[in-house]
């Protein structure tokens, strides 16, 4: 084969053939890829630097705070919110994030129930040794106190206003977290069924705020009379 390729740089293609189209496409693609890569890199660097900067700042301020005694003590009231476990219904296969309930709020509720209703005392006592009348006497204390503690700190309303035992109809798109279907679940909404339990929901919550150093794990302090 004696085909020789002459290289003439002055030549200009006159026809825009398939090869040239492919070539141009490849060049454009590579260029875009390069730009994207560069941007990603730049962002990455910027973030890393910010974090570093923040860390450095925090460290220096911490050391500053340690060396300089702040004259006015800072009072922090930590507000506790009971977090409800909530299932996120997203179609994407991303991992579901479950909220962690803060222990302080739970401890606080136990503290309130113990203070007002002697709740822990009652639960922890072995009731097998007592007759029903004695337990009934104690149950009054617990019931009355729980009632007071709950009413003071939570506002409770029923989820469904209907009469229990009556037939109700759930429209399409009802809130499945507020109404639970049971039994013969077939077909499409609207569903008609019997209201078994009206449900409860908290509409307002007013838990005491705690001072910074408060040990919430002490539900009831030991009492010593002098």
């Amino acid at each position, binding site marked *: 084969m004696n085909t020789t390729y002459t290289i003439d740089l002055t030549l200009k293609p006159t026809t825009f053939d398939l090869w040239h189209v492919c070539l141009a496409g490849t060049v454009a693609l590579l260029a875009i890829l390069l730009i994207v890569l560069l941007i990603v890199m730049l962002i990455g660097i910027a973030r890393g630097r910010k974090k570093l900067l923040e860390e450095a700042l925090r460290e220096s301020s911490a050391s500053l705070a340690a060396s300089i005694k702040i004259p006015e*003590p800072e*009072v922090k*009231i930590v507000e506790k919110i009971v977090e409800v476990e909530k299932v996120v219904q997203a179609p994407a296969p991303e991992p579901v994030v479950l909220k962690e309930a803060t222990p302080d709020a739970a401890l*606080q509720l136990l*503290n309130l129930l113990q*203070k007002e209703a*002697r709740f822990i*005392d*009652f639960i*922890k*006592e072995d*009731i097998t040794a*007592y007759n029903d009348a*004695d*337990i009934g*006497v*104690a149950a*009054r*204390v*617990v019931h*009355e106190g729980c009632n007071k503690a709950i009413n003071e700190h939570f506002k409770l309303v029923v989820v469904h206003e209907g009469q229990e035992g009556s037939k109700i109809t759930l429209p399409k798109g009802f809130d499945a977290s507020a109404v639970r279907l049971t039994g013969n679940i077939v077909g499409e909404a609207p569903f008609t069924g019997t209201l078994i339990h009206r449900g409860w929901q908290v509409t307002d919550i*007013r838990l*005491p*705020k*705690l*001072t*910074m*150093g*408060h*040990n919430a794990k002490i539900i009831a302090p030991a*009492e010593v009379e002098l």
Partner: protein
Amino acid sequence: MKSLFGHLRSENPGEGALNADVTQNESNEDSPSEDSDVEQGTVEYSGPRFSVGIDLGTTHCVLSYVDLSQSDEDGHVQEVMAIPQLTSPGAVEELMQLPSFLYQAHQAELAEGSSALPWTAKPEFLVGEIARSLGSKTPIRLVSSAKSWLCHAGVDCKAPILPAEAPEEVERVSPFQATVAYLQHIRDAWTQLHPDAPLANQDLTITVPASFDPAARELTVEAARFVGLEQALLLEEPQSALYSWIERSNGEWRKQTEVGDIILVIDIGGGTTDLSLIAVTEHDGNLELTRVAVGDHILLGGDNMDLALAYTVKAKLEKDGKRLESWQIQALTHGCREAKEKIFNDPSLDVMPLVVPNRGSSLIGGSLRTELTREEINNVLVDGFFPRIAASDRPISRPRGGLRTAGLPYAQDAGITRHLAAFLAKQLNATDDLKDINLPEHASFLHPTAVLFNGGVLKAAPLADRLMEVLNSWLTGEQAPEARLLEGADLDLAVARGAAYYGYVRKGKGVRIKGGTAASYYVGIESAMPAVPGMPPEIEALCIAPFGMEEGTEAALPDDEFGLVIGEPVRFRFFSSNTRREDRVGTRLDYWTDEELEELDEIEITLPEEGRRVGEVVPVHLTSAVTEVGTLELHAVSRQDGKRWKVEFDVRAGEEA
């Protein structure tokens, strides 16, 4: 002597240096300057945004406010502020009421930092719910009813005397300091919630019992000034309750009352009972309200009722051979209060079980069970505190035992209806000056035509019904129409709400109750009689402020001159009367009955040296003024140069007692 905050104050008004020839009457014109200046000074400061009312109660404090920026002719927005307070060590809660208790914690009692509040890491005193709950178990460190001490003759309210029963080691506070502590807590709570509108720049009204004497009113204002609330005005609690009722009626009050009405305000709180009469008259076609009479300070209230029930139940238990300890009585009192409320609120309930739980962790064993019946409640509370009596009955007063520990002068007769009968009979002539009010000739007591209730006790329908029944039986006995109950009052929060509304009314946005001084005041002067051996010198009472003297007015007694010695405190006996309405300034009484005039604590004038010779005698006369704030002020004015010295009320006989 009690020098905690010092009493000695000389006043020397700018225009005081008048010529000696100018008659004394003229030099009085500049008088109530001090307070009104302060008020205006704060108003200039961008103007108050809120009108705030503070009910400084014996057992609870409440703050209510009207947002003036959102109020116009048609309406106004009124709220009750939730007050953040410690409810137990380390826990801060917002409650509508701040219990008026102060607790002196031992330094080992609370963990470090557990008494922090949103605005301070370590408050000087524990006040509010935590004080009440800690104090219920450690009463020796609890200060309660400080307000009743303010009005207690014979003690120095600035001397550290509370808790009265505490052992030596417990640091004591004065009733005044306790009042300051409550106000300070309320002020700080306000500042935290409204950082851009300091309480010192708002219109502020503090309520006091109508029966507070001038010294107690002065102390309340002084406490407010002490925490920077210079602009505070005073308002009588029963008046405040009526303002609140007017506010809630949304203009309907004009239909529910008519000319000639006499409204009886019965305020039964946790610790005190306060009575007032307000007349409805007409002036130029408009309805006018005038407070015509106030009752005595009766230390009798809801707490006495709960205690009475607890002791009834205790007696019942002891009959069964069970001995109760003091903590059990405490728990029993608490249980009785709740059982009582349940029985009163539910007519179908006749018996409420009462359980006094064991203090240890074993709840089931060791708990004490008993019950409270409707019959017991009726006997103890309805018949005990509101007996059916005739209008001519009077409270029984036993002579006090010779040896009495220093304490509050609690009412001896628990029959509130007897106190009411005595009050109405005593005030028979209270409306003589008002032409719109016509009492029948044969009336043996003043006939109220309408009744307004206030105070938590009267939320119980059986008690309210009984009170109305007894009152109406007296009225029908004298062929008078039955009194009607004014509906729609908020018994717990009315006083604070009314006080906030009063600030709004003062801007000319509603009807005002005409009040003035709740009594007429007298100084005792030895009459110029030859001394008789073995007889105390005769004393005359010189009227220095008449009944109903209005805010911002002044009266002088130029004809009654005294010689005061420079540098020596001079004391006068001081009297008040809430029945002698006809006395004018300068009236001299040489005879009066014990019922007519009540002796208050002595008042004192000290003329400082200020360039004069000690021992020099300065001729002075007295002037009296009712300030815009609502306090009575007495001054001694020099004949020679118009110089003025303040007469101090707060010279309680602390050092002798």
